[in-house]
């Protein structure tokens, strides 16, 4: 056998394998991507909520993208408590000023960042929320203070459309 023939065959093998791999990947990707959120799911991207009936010290829970969103109208004590916490004491340091632009209103996903349960209102060691599943405690700013959850409850994108209406998403 001459060396030249071997090289030719090697090239054919490599080229065939490479083209085959690209082809297989091109077929596999649609099969994987079909499981991602579809157009109809993505279309439900925003919700408008009327918050006029909410009095201080109360929470409204609404469903947004299949997840509960807590809208809390905070009392002055709650705001003071949230704003007086030192950053060193936080597991996931975030200023309350950044989480609640308008201090009276706290809007966040009511989803525990541990494994996705819905925390309970006005419970726990920090007067905020308590997750019954695995015992995570959140403060009056929805920040994780104790327990297995790694992060604060997420603040979604939202805005006040007018004085009484919040648009989430």
């Amino acid at each position, binding site marked *: 056998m001459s060396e030249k023939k071997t090289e030719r065959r090697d090239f054919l093998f490599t080229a065939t394998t490479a083209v085959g791999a690209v082809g297989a990947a091109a077929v596999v990707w649609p099969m994987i991507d079909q*499981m*991602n*959120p*579809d157009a109809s*799911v993505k279309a439900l991207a925003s919700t408008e909520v009327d918050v006029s009936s909410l009095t201080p010290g109360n929470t409204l829970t609404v469903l947004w*993208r299949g997840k509960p969103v807590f809208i809390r109208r905070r009392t002055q004590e709650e705001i003071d408590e949230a704003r007086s916490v030192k950053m060193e004491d936080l597991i996931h340091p975030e200023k309350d000023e950044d989480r609640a632009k308008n201090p009276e209103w706290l809007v966040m996903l009511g989803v525990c960042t*541990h494994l996705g349960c819905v925390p309970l209102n006005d419970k726990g060691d920090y007067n905020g929320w308590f997750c*019954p599943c*695995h015992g995570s405690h959140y403060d009056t700013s929805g920040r994780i203070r104790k327990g297995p959850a790694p992060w604060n409850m997420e603040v979604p994108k939202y805005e006040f459309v007018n004085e009484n209406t919040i648009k989430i998403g």
Partner: protein
Amino acid sequence: MSDHDYRPKSKVGQWFNDRLPLLTLANHLTDYPTPKNLNYWWTFGGILTFCLITQIVTGLTLAMHYIAHADMAFESVEHIMRDVNYGWLIRYIHANGASMFFLAVYIHIFRSLFYGSYKSPREIIWILGIIIYLLMMAAAFMGYVLPWGQMSFWGATVITNLFSAIPLVGEGIVTWLWGGYSVDNPTLTRFFTLHYLIPFLILGLVVLHIWALHVPGNNNPVGIDIKKPSKDTVPFHPYIVIKDGFALLMFMIVFAFFVFYAPNILGHADNYIEANPMVTPAHIVPEWYLLPFYAILRSVPDKLLGVVAMLSAILILAVLPWLDTSKIRSAVFRPLYKQFYWILVADVLILGYVGAMPAEGLYLLIARVATAYYFLHFLVILPVLGFKEKTLPVPLSITEPVLGGSPNLAAARNKESKIE
């Protein structure tokens, strides 16, 4: 092997067998030489085959009435329970069948652990078994989601969220698993599809599991290699068939007790409340057969490490044949291992118990100690024991201890031949 010489008696049989040797296979299965000292712990392979077939048959019939849609799933299950002829029976068999399946598989696994059935040359049988066990857990989890009750929904939420512990890509994977931003209809339909598929994957793996078993043959309570066929073996049929059949009958009594007298005792009352994404049940617990692993998950205070510990607890079993350094298979001849074995059994039961309790105070402490011991058993005790332990003398054959336990081979053979 002698069964290769098999020739069907009838002309038609010969004609068929020359073209597709199914009769040779059937002959191999009936004549298959089995150690004659197998005890009742060896009957769970047959019992598990029965469980798998029961789940497939009842599952197929349930699928004729079930509707995999978030708005209709819960109602369709109630429809099965109330309206469909014998629907209650079929569903109770299927739901309790899952528990019975796991009961049997745990006994099967712990039998392997006691008698060292995972050791050379049976490592592949063991690893196939672990893959089957993993698929069983996946199937059971997804099946539990289908009735779309509160436990279904929140169980699905918690378990899929385990993947969010993976750094960087975790959140993306969870969204991909859900097909949305929370557990919802797309999640339900894909879980139904996979729940339907997995039993057939298990069936294929069971064929491989048995195939791999038939190469070296069964391990046995004495744990020694035996010649087959020989005085130490009996043909599978009728001896083992009858024994397996009797054990299966006993097992079915237990099964029937749950189906007819306590069909909901192993379930959770919250699952008779329709799924509500706004309210999490006060106390989320998985089905009993997953509790030990749930306890391990919760015993670690870090999210990612908790998930890693839980998965390791299962995957560590796959490398068990190499962690156990002892050449002796059966715990009968390993006085120290025998004690550690029972401590491990107790440890797993304790993990199961604290897994069902709230993760706080004393329960949490116990869970942490038990989790540490679980890993200690596999990673330290087993490897060291193989070198340190003084094992008892192992008989030369199964027949020997019965006919007079002389460690002298010649004497034992002499004795045997006299009896014959």
